[in-house]
């Protein structure tokens, strides 16, 4: 008869006790480190947030008082001796942006949506190659598209600096964005809907136009607004091709201005600090437009989706 106490102790129990003792003895230290590092995380969060809020606050505080009626209805003016503060407005830039972005949209929407539909419908090697191309194109610095349009249209075909060339450069920025986002929207349409169409004997084209596209509208709107919000703020591709103007015109064939361009030129080529300061107004207006489009795309999509269900 052996006594239980005489047996060698279970190594597992011993080990467990050892581990628990180690864990317990280091608990205070581990908790301290944990709390410290979480504090660092929170600090990083606050710092990043503060930087970003500071930028927004700066834009509002420095830009808001410039925004007035003449800001939208007058062309830029050189202050005279008599009117030291009369800088006019950015009507030329606003009109220019509307013309350039509008034409770009007219071209980019059909091409982007149709190509996006193709990507959603086919899986062959052509579609895969196009998908890769789209990814590469969205990642390229946008100024390259401006250089391309310059080399192609102005150097090769001796076309003149004009708003429509800016539109062409922006099309190359918009189309990949629309393609990518609309592919996702088209793919999200349930297969059963398409099969219902097929079972009724509808052709592929009718299914695409009457069933898939209406069902994908919220996603497609998001795609278009997203592309717009990206294109509206672009400066780099425009500086090579649109020239400049100081008198508002609706003609896309003349030299044009645009809101980001007016900020860029206003800051770097400004004659007086007053004119530099004035760019804050344009910057604030531009940010509001871009954020409005960006937020609009989210809310509109969410709203339309809720309407349907």
């Amino acid at each position: 008869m052996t006594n239980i106490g005489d047996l060698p102790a279970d190594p597992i129990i011993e080990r467990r006790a050892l581990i628990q003792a180690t864990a317990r003895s280091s608990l205070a230290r581990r908790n301290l480190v944990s709390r410290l590092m979480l504090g660092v995380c929170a600090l990083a969060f606050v710092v990043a947030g503060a930087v970003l809020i500071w930028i927004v606050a700066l834009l509002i505080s420095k830009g808001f008082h410039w925004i007035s009626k003449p800001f939208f209805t007058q062309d830029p003016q050189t202050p005279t001796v008599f009117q030291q503060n009369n800088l006019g407005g950015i009507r030329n830039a606003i009109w220019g942006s509307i013309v350039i972005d509008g034409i770009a949209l007219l071209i980019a929407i059909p091409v982007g949506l149709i190509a996006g539909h193709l990507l959603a419908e086919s899986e062959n090697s052509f579609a895969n190659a196009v998908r890769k191309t789209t990814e590469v194109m969205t990642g390229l610095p946008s100024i390259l598209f401006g250089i391309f349009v310059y080399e192609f249209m102005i150097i090769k075909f001796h076309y003149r600096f004009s708003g429509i060339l800016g539109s062409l450069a922006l099309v190359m920025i918009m189309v990949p964005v629309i393609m990518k986002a609309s592919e996702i929207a088209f793919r999200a349409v349930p297969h059963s809907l398409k099969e219902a169409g097929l079972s009724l004997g509808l052709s592929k084209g009718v299914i695409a136009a009457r069933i898939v596209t209406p069902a994908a509208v919220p996603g497609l709107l998001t795609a278009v607004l997203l592309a717009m919000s990206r294109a509206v703020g672009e400066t780099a591709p425009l500086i090579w091709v649109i020239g400049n103007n100081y008198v508002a015109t609706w003609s896309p064939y003349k030299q044009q201005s645009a809101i980001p361009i007016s900020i860029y030129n206003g800051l770097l080529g400004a004659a007086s600090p007053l004119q530099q300061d004035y760019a804050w107004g344009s910057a604030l207006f531009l940010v509001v437009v871009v954020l409005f489009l960006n937020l609009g795309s989210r809310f509109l999509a969410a709203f339309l989706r809720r309407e349907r269900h």
Partner: protein
Amino acid sequence: MSTEPTTESAPPAVPEDRVPGRVKRPRARSDGLYWGILYGATLVFVVVCVAFLVTLVTSSFSAWRHSGLGLIFGTTWNPDKELYGALPLLVGTLETTIIALVLAVPLGILVAVALVHLVPRRLRTPLSSFVELLAAVPSVVFGGVGFLVLAPYFQQHFYPWLQSTTHSFYLFSGTFSTTSTLLAGIVLFVMVLPTIVALSRDAIATVPVEQVEGAMSLGATKWQILSRVVLPSSRTGITGAVTLAAARALGETIAVAMVIGNYFKINHSLLSGGTTLASALATQWDGATSLTISALGALAVILIAITASVNYLGRALLRRASQGALL
């Protein structure tokens, strides 16, 4: 929608034997048209992309013929003397990107961790959207803030302070004015921060909850869970996020052009002016000779090669990360 097929499927006047042919022929034709339109529009896009690449490459030919590899390794950029060496631009591009990443990577990852694991659930979505909105702010606005606010402040307070605390350390020595490589790096840091936060947050949020719970059950503290479970298993996704941010920093044009000073010499001091590939493309074209335009085309080709490959790498990493999460 439901009424049309019924009217179509019940044409009373057509003889029975004609029906299959009648249905089939238009269907085949419209399918052809359908694919024709689809492929037509997509081909337009593809052709433009090819034209884009071909045009830029051919436009750079005369510069390559003129300078050869000196275009990459030459240290002097002086269009007036027809000297086109892009090394100062490459160095400037690298410097600004490194400064931006050194600042943005630790901060961005910590912020992403905080967004997923520390912030109350209710605030998570609005804060995330806020971060994404900041990624949408046009770069000319960041450049403007850097140029109008940071640049004068840096000249008056930050640079002197930096020199006195580091005793004019090698990187921070010499004279300075308002714009500098360091300022460009700092502006880029603010610009890439939203990218890093948004993408790392996605990577961190896809870590399986079982892994976190497993670590919890072993008695790990919160930081141990984050540093030994969450961050290691989202490593691929975070690397992808950082790579994409690097691609953005390498190609940023306007904001950098506004704050870097456009100074075409290699200088060891970060407080001196500099230039980058992309910003040179924005500042050098005005009034340029055709050879200079061609040299800028060569810069564009180099820039395409760099940003496209870095961008591709980043996307590949993100794709691998998301596939790993599914398995």
